[in-house]
């Protein structure tokens, strides 16, 4: 709940950097302890995930904060954050539809699903709805080829997509967002 609140908060005040809670800081220490001494850089990917959970995306300020936590130069964090596709370097919608479009999903109709989502949400690929609720992204293979077409929504996969199922997912997201407000 706290995470959700913070992500909404930072969405509107993106330049404002919120430091980790005590709980998150303890988690960072626990992660660092998994590696040999002096190898705390190994914690970079997991800690960036933690930061993204709090803020929804990674601003330069957030990355600088992560650098200071792990005693790294900021550039080392930027280099890593820009390499991996899961780190959002710009604010994204509250619900991000990441639709797979690689071979196995394509032959099962992912193009149609992408088109349908575009039409339903009135946005293009890579865009966010004006209410800040939805972002549409096309991604490459997510390892759910047998359950195609599919997309990632937050932590989970939505598989065997059909137009009806897309409608249902959009509805659920809207409902959930409404309850939070």
């Amino acid at each position, binding site marked *: 709940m706290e995470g959700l609140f913070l992500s909404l908060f930072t969405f509107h005040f993106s330049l404002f950097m919120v430091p980790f809670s005590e709980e998150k800081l303890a988690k960072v220490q626990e992660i660092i302890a998994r590696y040999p001494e002096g190898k705390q850089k190994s914690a970079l990917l997991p800690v960036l995930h933690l930061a993204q959970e709090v803020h929804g995306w990674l601003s*330069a300020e957030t990355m600088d904060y992560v650098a200071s936590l792990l005693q790294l*130069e*900021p*550039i*080392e964090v*930027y*280099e890593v954050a*820009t*390499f991996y596709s899961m780190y959002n370097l710009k604010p994204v919608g509250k619900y991000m539809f990441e639709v797979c479009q690689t071979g196995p999903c394509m032959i099962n109709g992912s193009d149609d699903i992408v088109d349908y989502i575009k039409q339903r949400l009135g946005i293009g690929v890579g865009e966010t709805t004006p209410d800040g609720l939805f972002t549409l992204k096309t991604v490459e293979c997510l390892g759910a080829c047998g359950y195609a077409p599919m997309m990632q929504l937050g932590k989970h996969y939505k598989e065997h997509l059909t137009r009806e199922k897309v409608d249902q997912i959009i509805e659920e997201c809207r409902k959930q967002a409404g309850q939070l407000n």
Partner: protein
Amino acid sequence: MSEEKKLFKVTIDNITVEVEPGTTILNAARQIGGEVTPPAMCYYSKLKNSGGKCRTCLVEVAAGSTADPRPMPKLVASCRTTVMDGMIVKNITSERVLDARAGVVEFLLLNHPLDCPICDQAGECHLQDLSYEHGKEGTRYEFNRRTFKKHDLGEYIQLHMTRCILCYRCVFTADQLTNKRVHGILDRGDHAEIATYIEKSLDNDFIGNVIDVCPVGALTDKTFRFKNRVWFTKPVDAHRDCSKCCGEVQLWMRGDEVFRVTARKDEWGEVKDSTKGGPGWICNECRFEKKDAKDWTIDGPTQVNRHSVISQGHYVNVVKPKETLPDVMGGRGPKLLMNIHNVSEVNRPEIELSKIAGPAHSDDFKNSLDNGK
């Protein structure tokens, strides 16, 4: 009594050389020199961990060693493969190597803007040399070339990302010569780029060396930008007492004017060792702030590889030739081979172009024709 070191025999393109164990194929080939030396765009002997990336130095290992003479199935990066005793290497004698290398050159030029006419690196660019020596004419690429958002790296260093071949040398330089690296490789794949992420200038005392290690015109000297062509300037060795670096440099001069200061380079284009030992990296002050000949003690002309385009403008003990044209003009006027007005109907000497308001237009000629009627 020193123990006699066992040397490894390695044969490269039928030339055998003895090298110390641990030597790479590329460095063994450099000991032979000449054409059997594979080109290297990313490897830099003075930078730890460099090499292996550009793939221009690929060679064929026809026999692994005397003990195990099996050939290696794939071409190997000669800069990162150490020799074994009895190894047989084929470089320019291997069709496979020449073919693969031509491929690599084509790949490197695919998204390169080919803006040599406006590039300060032209004339000393390793990518130019590479394409002349190992590339094919023309390109088969028919798509738009890659572009990047422009980044400002501060008052000293000019970045042209479109020219970059991602050799990582400048990253290693910043890691190994400065205490705090602020630029790096961002993003991945075909849009990976050199940048600082946040707009930040590179201002460490030794960061200017990234200009010397850059094999292309991606990182150039802002204080030399568009000032002159390298082949019109004359490189001389010079030194000064510097508290930060060895102070041994190369001045790029024209007349008495110092256009540019760089570190001294060897025949492979790498920074030479200084007389004080160790690579002769120079500091920003020597490189960017000392542009007066009086700042320096000149040691003499730099010996430049005679193949280099730079040698074109390089005269030792030669006085600047006297301009001959005024003499010629004093004697007789230049011979006019053909009067354009005699052969062209468009050029009409009776029309005074300066009298026409704005640019000349076909109507202007037409009217005058009509008037003439």
